[in-house]
């Protein structure tokens, strides 16, 4: 193997063989090392969260990747190819100008027109002091009810949009809630407070990617429809009857349901 090991010969055959072997070993090792190193650097440069999100987004079924403008009825059909990040979407401005053709009927859950919504079922409210409050929207709230436990980020920790902002446990299911925006945690609330995080947004503040107005109703109705489909079993509870208000604490009401899939769909997991 090596010149100092018994059985090594300085013969051409031996040298060629071993050098080829070492070349192969080095190639394999360098492949691993470079993969690891690139991974590490992605984390150093904070590209990791973004990449994870985009990899997940790529795996989402098409129905869940509809463009906000389709939700608002501005365009008949459009699928987002930008990981829901309208900030860098070339067509955003042009499409946003179109009129929304989508009357906001009752979708079964309430939503507020002065809140901005993220597709991961969080809302964002800008406060006077320039911070942003983040909470769980009513749809998610109805489903989960009161979580058994909440694991919130520590103060001054950073959140990245579409990264995991906080985790909750409910009936043995882990719920990973995606952060709507980039920012620094100023203070943390919880289930009782009605909000979960207060963030100081990273400058420049840009909330363009969050849903508002007609988009929200379109989006939520879509979510409710999917929920209906997922629960379209013979013994479906009346709460899901067409138009009826969403029954609170659905997870407690129907423990047998395939919540794993449902929650994954709701919180944008592939």
């Amino acid at each position: 193997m090596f010149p100092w090991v018994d059985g090594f010969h300085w013969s051409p055959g031996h040298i060629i063989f071993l050098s080829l072997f070492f070349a192969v070993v080095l190639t394999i090792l360098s492949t691993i090392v470079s993969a690891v190193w690139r991974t590490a650097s992605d984390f150093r440069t904070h590209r990791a969260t973004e990449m994870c999100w985009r990899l997940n987004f790529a795996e989402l079924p098409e129905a869940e990747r509809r463009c906000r403008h389709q939700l608002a009825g501005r365009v008949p059909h459009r699928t987002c190819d930008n990981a829901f990040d309208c900030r860098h979407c070339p067509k955003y401005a042009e499409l946003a100008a179109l009129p929304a053709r989508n009357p906001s009927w009752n979708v079964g859950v309430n939503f507020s027109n002065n809140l901005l919504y993220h597709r991961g079922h969080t809302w964002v409210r800008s406060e006077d002091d320039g911070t942003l409050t983040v909470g769980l929207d009513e749809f998610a709230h109805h489903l989960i009810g009161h979580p058994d436990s909440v694991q919130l980020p520590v103060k001054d920790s950073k959140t990245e949009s579409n990264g995991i902002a906080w985790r909750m446990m409910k009936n043995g299911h882990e719920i990973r809630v995606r952060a709507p925006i980039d920012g620094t945690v100023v203070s943390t609330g919880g289930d009782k407070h009605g909000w979960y995080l207060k963030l100081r947004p990273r400058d420049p503040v840009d909330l363009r990617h969050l849903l508002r107005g007609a988009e929200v109703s379109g989006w939520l109705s879509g979510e409710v429809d999917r929920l209906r489909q997922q629960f379209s079993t013979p013994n479906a509870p009346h709460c899901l009857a067409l138009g009826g208000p969403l029954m609170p604490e659905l997870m407690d009401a129907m423990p047998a349901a395939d919540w794993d899939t449902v929650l994954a769909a709701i919180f944008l997991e592939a």
Partner: protein
Amino acid sequence: MPDLLVLDRRLIARGVERSSTMRFVFWLAPWVALLALGIYAAALCFYYGLNQTHMDNRFAFGMWIYLDLGMIAMGAGTFFTGFLVYILKQEDLKPILNSAVVVGLICYSGAVAVLMVDVGQPLRAWFTFWHPNTHSMLTEVTFCITCYLFVLILEYLPVLLRNRQLRKVPSFLVFEYQLHKLVPVLAGVGAFLSFFHQGSLGGLYGVLRGRPFAFRQGFAIWPSTFFLFILSAIAVGPSFLMLVTAMAETLTGRRLVQPSVFRKLGSISGVLLGAYVAAKALDTLVWLNITSPALGFAPWDYYAYKPFGWALLFAEIVPLGLLPAFLLILPLTARKRSWALCGAALGCGGVLLNRFVLTVQTLALPTLAFDDFLRYIPSWQEVATFAGVIAYGVIVYSLSYRYLPLFGQAKGGDKNVSVG
């Protein structure tokens, strides 16, 4: 038990429907039992030594070596498709790639495991690396197979990390992404390694001057069997992938890959098989008329012993070589799935027969004028050990199919029966 159900569900990618946990468990149970038996048999061999087998001084290689050669030949589809996709840019074969990687991993890890049982002093196996005799084909095989096994593991890693739970860990997901970008490099290395060890496995017997039935002339240090093995391996590798995929499709009752992929694999297999048969025939003629007589061995002597008659040689070349080649090439049959699969099966059979002849018949035939033809029946330990490897393969493939994106994310539900 409910935990198991939950775990099972959580491991299956969202939106992918798989058979019920119970059904899956019932499918796995017999294989697990078989694997346990195999492990027990191997343990016997480790503890009491190889007297547990029916090998002996004259039949020093037995069933295990034969099946190793066979498995590795079947595993050749992996490096070859990798080579086609990443080096020759045959993108349309991509859907089969993940499945191919798993098949390769099973074949190679299985073969290495059996080899470890087969040697008398497994604890000294590393001597081969420490004091290598670079003239030995076995050294070449050992080095290449070990390295290639690592490559396969690396190629399998991205597939594994795409599992629903594992991908939740951001670092895993990113690593998978980065590694996947580098896979072409691995494919290249894999192709290089496989080329050599497939060949060396042929050389293994081709260099045996003392066994004129196996001995062949060749270029430089490599006997003709070196090249024949490479050719035959890459010829049936794709066929074997077709068979495995087809089997998975019947078991799951779902179309996993487009017919076009099948056809492409088939035609590649067919063409290479044709080339192989031609080369093999030529080589046989040279051997019968020049090589063997020169060593003082009349060729007809080899085939004077039943059950190893000329029929074996004929079967290897015509019904299990030429015929499948035609079945896979001719549009008429190639387009028909059943015919194509039949051709693939025959092709694999032919190469397996070739490996059998080279390993078993070579040892059974007498060399000294006063020697007799030898017989050898493997012991149950030998059979069980190998059965264990088969079971291991089925288990790994089933688990991979169930929890990993083997054929892209084939969303949508299974049809009738569904395992894996």
